[in-house]
């Protein structure tokens, strides 16, 4: 109980300190945004080349690169957002991922390699369109199966109705025949 109170006190103090420092400085906090291409400090960063393998495409640039980045970005889910692609999100994470995609595409990696790279890092959750395999097949097959099942039920119902209509007509005709015969 004492620990919880102490922790709450610490959090409150930190919140006050953070808001106070934010008020003192009029400028918003600097956020480490992705740098433009070639701005990475030499020798620093992360090694990804051995995980990606050799580029299977050709290095892109200019408008071709812009188009390819836009295409890849629509496939990738922004990790900080709800059901938004990194193309549609202005979040810093989405910007960083677009910059990474741009960097990889400019080195000659294909769209599949780039999407595969993000999937390797974040898991399949990062794909806006789940791959049609395993349990995901339910997602892909369910709409078609529901439409098919619905159609089948309607057809059966119509057939049943038609059959009962035919039967009542037959009964009626038999009754008419019997009455006219007498």
């Amino acid at each position, binding site marked *: 109980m004492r620990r919880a109170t102490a*922790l709450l006190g610490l959090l409150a103090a930190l919140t006050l300190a953070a808001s106070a420092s934010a008020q003192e400085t009029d400028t918003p906090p600097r956020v*480490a945004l992705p740098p433009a291409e070639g701005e*990475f400090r030499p020798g620093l960063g992360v090694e990804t080349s051995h995980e990606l393998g050799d580029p299977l495409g050709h290095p892109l640039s200019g408008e071709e690169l812009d188009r390819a980045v836009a295409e890849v970005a629509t496939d990738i889910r922004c990790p900080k957002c709800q059901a938004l692609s990194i193309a549609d999100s202005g979040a810093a994470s989405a910007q960083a991922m677009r910059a990474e995609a741009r960097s990889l595409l400019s080195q000659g990696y294909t769209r599949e390699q780039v999407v595969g790279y993000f999937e390797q890092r974040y898991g399949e959750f990062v794909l806006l369109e789940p791959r049609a395999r395993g349990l995901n097949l339910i997602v892909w097959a369910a709409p078609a199966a529901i439409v098919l099942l619905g159609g089948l039920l309607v057809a059966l119902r119509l057939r049943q109705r038609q059959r009962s209509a035919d039967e009542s007509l037959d009964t009626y005709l038999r009754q008419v025949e019997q009455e006219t015969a007498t």
Partner: protein
Amino acid sequence: MNRKVLLVGLGISLPLLVLLGVAFRHDPQIVDSPLVGKPAPNFRLADLDGNIVDLAELRGRPVIVNFWATYCVPCWAEHPLLVEGSRRWQGEIHFLGVIFQDDPDLIAQFTAEYGRWGPSLIDEGGRVAIAYGVYGPPETFFIDRDGVIVDKAIGAVSPDQLLGVANRMLAQPAAATG
């Protein structure tokens, strides 16, 4: 006829209810990392003082890599625990912080005030965070002596998890060294 309708209704709704029951037991915010059990992506980053830290050079000792930021409340909550952990396992486990989309000056102010548990590394462009598939801070990666990610904590790391995984990593002998 009513029985048939009931059976069809049950046939459709029961599997959906089971699916809902299973799904509600899982926090949708927690996505299992595909990196657990795989070699940690190697990085080389500068800390706030300009010192270079190369993950590959730390091989042979377990490493705890924590992605954090000053705007993240769970990061404040876990901060004292990481300070305590870094003291307890000094010389046995490396503690590294990677700044996640935050101002290095604010990080410096924070650590000056509340203590530091390891170097805070500047991840320019967030490329290391992407390589580790970080969704948001704090996320903690536990890397064993051989450079393999053995566990990951999403959100503030708990004392039980820190203690459990740290002891497990320390008990494991280095396999691939030499």
